[in-house]
C-alpha cells in the first residue's frame, strides 16, 4: 500500500511539473523544437532545472542501502551506444516533432485533451507492442 501511494505521489508530482512547466502545451513544445522559426526556449529552462534536481535527489537516495519500499535499486543495464538506440531515438524524435507529444505529457493531458490524444496513446502502445514482437522480447 505504501509502495502504491508513493508511486501515485511521484506520478502526481511529475504530472504537476509537466503542467506547470508547459510540457502539456504543444505550442510550447513545438516552439522549442522550432529553431528555424520563432524559437521558444521554455523547455530548455525546464530541462536545466529537472536534470540537476534529479541528479541531486538520486545521489541522496543512493546513500541508503536500498529504497524505502523495495529490496534493490534498479538501474538500466545497457551501456552500448548502438544502431538500435540511435534509430529508436531518431524515430521517437520525428514522432515528437510531428505532434509535440512525448509519453508523459500525452498521459497528463489525456482526460481533457480530446479524442486525438486517445488515438495517439493507442498507436503508441500498438507501436511498442509491435516492436516487442519484432525484437522477440
Amino acid at each position: 500500500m505504501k509502495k502504491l501511494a508513493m508511486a501515485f505521489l511521484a506520478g502526481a508530482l511529475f504530472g504537476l511539473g509537466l503542467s506547470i512547466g508547459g510540457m502539456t502545451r504543444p505550442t510550447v513544445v513545438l516552439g522549442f523544437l522550432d529553431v528555424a522559426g520563432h524559437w521558444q526556449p521554455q523547455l530548455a529552462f525546464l530541462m536545466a532545472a529537472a536534470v540537476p534536481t534529479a541528479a541531486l535527489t538520486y545521489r541522496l537516495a543512493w546513500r541508503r542501502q536500498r529504497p524505502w519500499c523495495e529490496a534493490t535499486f534498479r538501474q538500466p543495464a545497457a551501456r552500448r551506444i548502438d544502431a538500435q538506440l540511435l534509430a529508436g531515438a531518431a524515430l521517437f524524435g520525428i514522432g515528437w516533432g510531428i505532434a509535440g507529444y512525448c509519453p508523459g505529457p500525452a498521459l497528463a493531458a489525456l482526460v481533457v485533451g480530446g479524442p486525438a490524444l486517445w488515438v495517439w496513446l493507442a498507436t503508441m502502445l500498438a507501436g511498442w507492442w509491435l516492436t516487442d514482437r519484432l525484437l522477440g522480447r
Partner: protein
Amino acid sequence: MHTYDIVDALLGGVLIGAAAGLLMAGLGRIAGISGITGGLLSAAAGDRAWRVAFVLGLVAGPWLRVLAGGPSGIDPPLAGLPWMALAGALVGIGTRLANGCTSGHGVCGLARLSPRSLAATLVFIACGMATVAVLRHVAGWPS
C-alpha cells in the same frame, strides 16, 4: 516568452526532477514514462500495480493545480487525427527501440550521467527540430 514563463519552466523542472528522485528513493526505479506505460502491456502481474498507480498520479497531477484554483495547463492537440496516429506509432516504436523517451533518457539518464542517454537525447532533440523545420518551413504547416 516572459519572465513568468521562465519561472514556471524552472519550477516545473524542479518538480519533475523531485518526482524522479522520489520514485528512485521509494521504489528504486527510473521514472521513464514510456517504460512504465509500455510495461503495463508486458510486465509480470506483480510488477503492474505500481505502474498503474504512477500513471493515475500522472493523469491526476495537472488537476492538483486546478484544485488550487489555477489553470490545468493543458492545451488541445494542434495536429489532426491521422497525424496524431502516426506520431503516436513513431513514439511507441522509437522509445521501445531506444529504451526510453524524454523522461527516461532526457531527465533520469542525464542525471545518472549515462553516455547512452546523452546520445539518445541529442538524437531525439535534433530529429524533433529537423521534423518541425520541415513541416513548418518546407511543407508550410500552420501550427
